[in-house]
């Protein structure tokens, strides 16, 4: 019941908040509830077996028998950290939004918790339709979050976000249904279970686009690529990020983008091994182009938030590159980079939100000399910048190193190009840092009528966990990778006949038991 409670507790919390009578304590309540959720999610470790390759803590019931759709949740090394990332970020986001969200507080927190359920469900659902329900559901609260609490062009941004992602995922739905029929053909029993999907042998013909596996592969890949977002379907992201309120940006960058890369790991690569191998060059190319393109475009953005948004495009390009390297380094690095990006870009958005609350501007050219005025803020910003540009001993380095190593092993040419991202990443971040924090004091910083005040205790409390994670993950990556190693190795080595088993000490798989009787 652990996974169910992790997924659906937030929904319960959302209801609780919706009926909570006192408006002035909603924030405290939400913070407390999100912390409870985090603690509950930590309890996974009590039962998690890091050495097992299969699905653990499985919960499996028939939901829609007619179509073999199951209520099926499970966790393994791939989803473990993403789940924890989600539960870890939520209390931080709620605390960070303490003063930035001033109206419709109740609605905001309800959205937040529904979103949490949707994201956790996406990571844990092991049934295609069950997964799709969460996947699409996650759009709705995000849509409201950007649309209601966002900036000036919020409506354009949020509609663009919704339509883009929706357009990507509908073809996936068709593909899922098609695969359900394939399972029926193969076993006589229709099923939407991911485990049954894995067992399918989908015919693949190289050299043509119109082979079944390739078509299904692209139907899935498009949905995930838009979510990632990979070049050239990334343009919804900058708009969504810029217009989203701080918590929205954080959750978007921190968790929602990972739903795309997670989709590649969980769905695309093991389901369509031949096609993904055949088209790996394309996705490595997309990843590489994304890295360079995102970095170049980030460099010339006049708006800090847009800069960070494009940097996300660049960072997510790394992850895509790593995943399609098809070796333990690339995959492991990719998974690790997902967490890193969640932490560091999330923190960057929080920081930008903090300064925006003070000056109500994100225009780089209006800043300057901030380091002298807000030293604590500067220190935090600098640490996160380091993490973002992957300086060793911060988390970013570990992920980037492994990704590039894996890429080099898979195809050196891509590594040669991708490595330029290391330089360009430093260029856009440090150039921005220089223009905002160094030099003479800009018009916003100088303003004597409204002297800027440095971070208060709450804001420091928001950032400290992030900074701790930056260094913890940078110095002791094994603490994290050890839990994922078995799953990643299994994925890498058994890609072409991927077959997750259910590992659940003490519990008996019902269908299996029947077979024995």
């Amino acid at each position: 019941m652990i996974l169910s409670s992790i997924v659906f507790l937030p929904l319960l919390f959302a209801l609780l908040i919706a009926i909570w009578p006192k408006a002035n304590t909603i924030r405290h309540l939400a913070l407390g509830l999100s912390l409870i959720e985090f603690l509950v999610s930590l309890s996974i470790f009590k039962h998690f077996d890091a050495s097992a390759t299969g699905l653990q803590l499985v919960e499996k019931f028939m939901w829609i028998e007619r179509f073999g759709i199951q209520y099926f949740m499970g966790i393994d090394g791939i989803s473990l950290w993403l789940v924890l990332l989600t539960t870890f970020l939520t209390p931080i986001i709620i605390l960070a939004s303490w003063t930035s969200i001033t109206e419709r507080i109740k609605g905001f927190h309800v959205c937040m918790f529904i979103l949490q359920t949707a994201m956790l469900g996406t990571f844990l659902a092991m049934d295609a339709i069950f997964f799709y329900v969460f996947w699409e559901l996650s759009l709705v609260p995000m849509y409201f979050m950007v649309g209601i609490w966002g900036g000036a062009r919020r409506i354009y941004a949020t509609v663009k976000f919704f339509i883009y992602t929706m357009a990507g995922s509908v073809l996936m739905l068709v593909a899922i249904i098609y695969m359900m029929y394939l399972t029926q053909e193969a076993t006589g029993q229709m099923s939407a279970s991911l485990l049954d999907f894995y067992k399918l042998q989908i015919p693949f013909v190289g050299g043509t686009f119109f082979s079944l596996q390739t078509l299904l592969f692209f139907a899935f890949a498009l949905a995930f690529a838009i979510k990632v977002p990979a070049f050239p379907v990334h343009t919804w992201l900058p708009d969504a990020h810029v217009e989203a309120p701080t918590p929205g940006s954080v959750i978007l960058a921190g968790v929602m983008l990972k739903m795309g890369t997670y989709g590649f790991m969980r769905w695309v690569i093991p389901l369509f091994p031949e096609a993904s191998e055949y088209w790996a060059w394309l996705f490595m190319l997309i990843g590489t182009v994304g890295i360079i393109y995102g970095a170049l475009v980030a460099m010339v953005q006049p708006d800090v938030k847009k800069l960070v948004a494009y940097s996300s495009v660049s960072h997510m390009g790394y992850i895509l590159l790593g995943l399609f390297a098809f070796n333990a380094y690339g995959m492991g690095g990719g998974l690790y980079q997902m967490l890193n990006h969640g932490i560091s870009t999330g923190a960057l958005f929080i920081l930008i939100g903090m300064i925006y609350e003070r000056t109500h501007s994100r225009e780089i050219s209006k800043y300057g000399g901030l380091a002298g005025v807000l030293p604590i803020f500067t220190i935090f910003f600098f640490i996160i910048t380091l993490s973002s540009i992957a300086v060793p001993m911060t988390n970013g380095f570990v992920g980037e190193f492994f990704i590039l190593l894996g890429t080099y092993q898979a195809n050196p040419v891509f590594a040669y190009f991708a490595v330029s991202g290391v330089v360009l990443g430093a260029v856009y971040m440090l150039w921005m840092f220089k223009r905002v924090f160094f030099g003479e004091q800009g018009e916003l910083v100088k303003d004597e009528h409204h002297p800027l005040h440095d971070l208060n205790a709450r804001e420091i409390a928001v950032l400290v966990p992030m900074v701790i994670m930056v260094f913890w993950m940078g110095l002791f990556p094994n603490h994290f990778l050890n839990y994922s190693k078995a799953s990643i190795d299994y994925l890498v080595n058994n890609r072409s006949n991927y077959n997750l088993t259910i590992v659940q000490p003490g519990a008996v798989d019902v269908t299996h038991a029947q077979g024995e009787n």
Partner: protein
Amino acid sequence: MNHSLLMAILILAPFVGFLINGARYKKHSGNVAGSIATVAVAISFISAILLVVDLISMPAEGRRIAVSFFEWMAIDKFKVNAGFVVDQISAIMILVITGVGTLIHLFSIGYMHHDKGVAKYFAYLNLFIFNMLLLVLGDSLLVMFVGWEGVGLCSYLLIGFWFTDKEKAAAGMKAFITNRIGDAAFLLGMFVLFITFGTLNFSELNALAPTVAESTWLGALTLGTLFLFIGATGKSAQIPLYVWLPDAMAGPTPVSALIHAATMVTAGVYMIVRLNPLFIMAPNTMMVIAIIGAATAVFAATIGITQNDIKKVLAYSTVSQLGYMFLAVGVGAFGAAMFHLMTHAFFKALMFLGSGSVIHGMHEEQDIRKMGGLKKYMPITHITFVMGWLAIIGTPLFSGFFSKDEILAYAFHSPMGSPILWAAGVVGATLTAFYMTRLMALTFWGKSRVSPDVHPHESSAIMTIPLIILAILSVFAGWIGVPHVIGEHLGHMPNFWEHWLHPMISPIPGWTAIDHTTEWVLMGCSVGLATVSAIVAYQFYVKSPETPKKIAESIKPVYNLVNNKYFVDEAYFGGIINPLINLSKNTWYYIDVNFIDKMTFWAGDLVRGMGSFVRSVQTGNMQQYAMYIGIGVVVALSFVIMR
């Protein structure tokens, strides 16, 4: 004490200093902050000495103290420990870093005491020492890379220390980004080596080094070592990535002494020496290194002649001297390179600190045209500076003489060297003698050109004591590596240096002993030319100050070219950076905004267009509706009837 504890103290003492000073970043007391930082480094220095003493007491074979704290990064076959090793090579480095580091910290107490951000300054300085120690102690390329990037980061922070000045902040950024270019190549080098050898550990890599030289250009070894060398050109300011170092003089002068002369910039040389069994088997790489080194040595020296900022002169001199080290490495003289690295650390640190003392005494004046005759105001600074000067121009029996001449001898005689490389080295030495003498002449000697408002004064003891210690080292440090050709005339003085490093250095393939006559002739050439050059410079700048101007006037185009540093910065800006920014702007504008987004809009417009068509046929006239029905029926029927 056990080694891991000592190692931990050695590495972590500066880090603790950093944390303490970092926590009190708002405090203004230079003495407290400085003392904390200096003590931290001194503790490191003591631990280093203890470790080295232990190391010496070990038998020559297997002389190595290795400590591994924890497994750092591990996926699949890739396993890297947070492991550190003290052996013959890193022993030298940790002594130099912590030793010179302590002196520079001490000097900084005096130099920085009036600065508001002094606590921050010392925090950065300690952090630098910490990272530098990681760099030299790391037992694998990856751990080294941690320090490698870490020192770059500290360099960034310290160059941009006075961040309110836009130029200085920009200089810091330039340094970091230029270094990053090298670092990216370094990463690629690591990948190549890991894919080829399956490890990044130095001792394992060196053990796995092939026994036959690789002659192709795209072989794994050549490629890997070339990438690593590109990394080194970034960190060690070689052509084409040297441009950041002169700008790095924007930082406080002790920083220039510590980071940009004595320690960090030599990391590239250190890295190559560490991996010398690999490099020696990649002759193509070696050739590239030697050529780049020699070219840098000459190129930077010519620029040094025309500079008027005391620190800029020293900066170009550093670039030039680093070129020597790479020349040495490139011809296989790894021992000589390390030797020059050490002596250079002493005399260049001394000169930088001396210049700091001058600047301090001149109230932040750096232009040597506004100095002159400072000898009488700053006697100690002057004397110590003279020691450095003598060392750098290669005055016999001073430290620089031994190291430089060993390099030149190898350049001439090594199978990997050539007379051309030697000639370049000699030209470099001659130019060095010229511009260093010019610096001395314009700063300390001759008539005073100090403006009447400025009252130069000698610095306090806390600043002069480090100068004196470094001066002594500059003079005598060379004696531990006296070549046989001289040593045999000095009572068969042994070459300690060579013996110490011998187990770590791979022999040059095809090396034959150099005969003494050749060695004397070579020595004579370089010393003679340097002497002549120094005398000419003295004549020019002390006796007849008008001559240089006239000469400059007569070769104006050349002078302008050199004076403007060959317009390299401008070329980089015009040829790479600005086009890149324009490209980015255009990419954003044309691809993102005007293409991808437009496509989305087009799709939207298409849908809307269809919608307005549907609306336009929805006229409200019900007979028209009836007609649609009629047409629909007729069309459907005729289609259906066709079977």
